[in-house]
């Protein structure tokens, strides 16, 4: 009799732990968000789509912890986050406005084996659907898919306020090719010539602009809670099986 471990060896190697990160680079990502490049010498690497918890400790000992999706993946000690500032938030305004290169942060991760994509599991098509900063883990999946030269067809439908609010705009554009299709759906303001397309995603948008249920895509949806719940219910109404839809909500502060 043998007992299989409940985790695969690579997952075991990536057991969550607390790490000390040093801010290597900081840059504006959108008018309200910043990209943080962190050096984490003890980081074990992470799957595309995983998240981590950031813990801040005030001088009086008060602690606040928030979860952030990781934009990078694979075996690397460089961890990339893109954090959208939540007005009146407790953690994100500090990360976006106050942090400086050389500052240190406490991280717990990598976390989450549910909302992750791994190359070469099968060749089923993958439909990614993002609302706002919910694109971060989906960008990690698309970049990992490209880096692995994985043959599964990928599509990203990305609901975003204006062209200036697109996270990883240049990187996403560079990924477009035979195995990756990028479809931006603007809710407030579109580039010149596309003004007729402005609006929130609806069930009809999903029917017209995502991989149909008949092709049995694996679907990943990430965004604000209301967005995710509306999209997931429309996907089910369009014939996608609940088990084929993976969701991640954020609301945080």
């Amino acid at each position: 009799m043998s007992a299989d471990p409940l985790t695969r060896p690579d997952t075991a190697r990536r057991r969550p732990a607390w790490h000390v990160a040093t801010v290597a680079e900081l840059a504006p990502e959108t008018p309200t968000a910043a990209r943080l490049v962190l050096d984490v010498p003890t980081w074990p690497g992470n799957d595309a789509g995983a998240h981590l918890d950031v813990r801040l400790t005030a001088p009086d000992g008060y602690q606040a912890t928030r979860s952030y999706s990781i934009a990078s993946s694979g075996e690397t000690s460089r961890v990339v986050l893109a954090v959208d500032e939540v007005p009146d938030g407790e953690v994100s305004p500090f990360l976006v406005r106050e942090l400086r290169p050389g500052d240190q942060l406490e991280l717990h991760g990598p976390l989450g084996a549910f909302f992750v994509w791994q190359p070469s599991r099968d060749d089923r098509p993958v439909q990614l659907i993002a609302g706002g900063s919910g694109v971060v883990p989906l960008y990690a999946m698309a970049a990992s898919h490209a880096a692995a030269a994985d043959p599964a067809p990928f599509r990203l439908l990305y609901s975003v306020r204006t062209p200036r609010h697109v996270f990883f705009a240049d990187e996403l554009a560079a990924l477009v090719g035979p195995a990756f299709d990028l479809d931006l759906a603007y809710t407030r303001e579109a580039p010149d010539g596309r003004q007729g397309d402005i609006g929130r995603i609806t069930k009809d948008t999903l029917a017209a602009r995502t991989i149909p249920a008949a092709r049995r895509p694996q679907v990943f949806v990430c965004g604000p809670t209301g967005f995710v719940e509306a999209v997931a219910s429309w996907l089910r109404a369009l014939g996608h099986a609940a088990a084929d839809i993976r969701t991640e909500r954020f609301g945080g502060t």
Partner: protein
Amino acid sequence: MTHLDGNVLAGALADIFSVDLTPASARCTGCGAVAQLAEAMVYTNAPGIVARCATCDHVLATVVDAGDRLWLSLTGLSGIELRRA
């Protein structure tokens, strides 16, 4: 602040369990629905973290972290299924 989902439990539970429970399936003791823990509705704006069934709103689990002590309740979950990869 509205609810989040069970993905956000991964960090709190990693301090307690040796495997990630968020992709594990479990039965709600309120309505019998079976779902992955990542799909639960999670409220973090309480003194602790409260996970509720997405089908019937029954409380599945609570985690309260007070620094030097931690309270865990899994009273709303039964038949937790972990997959060997």
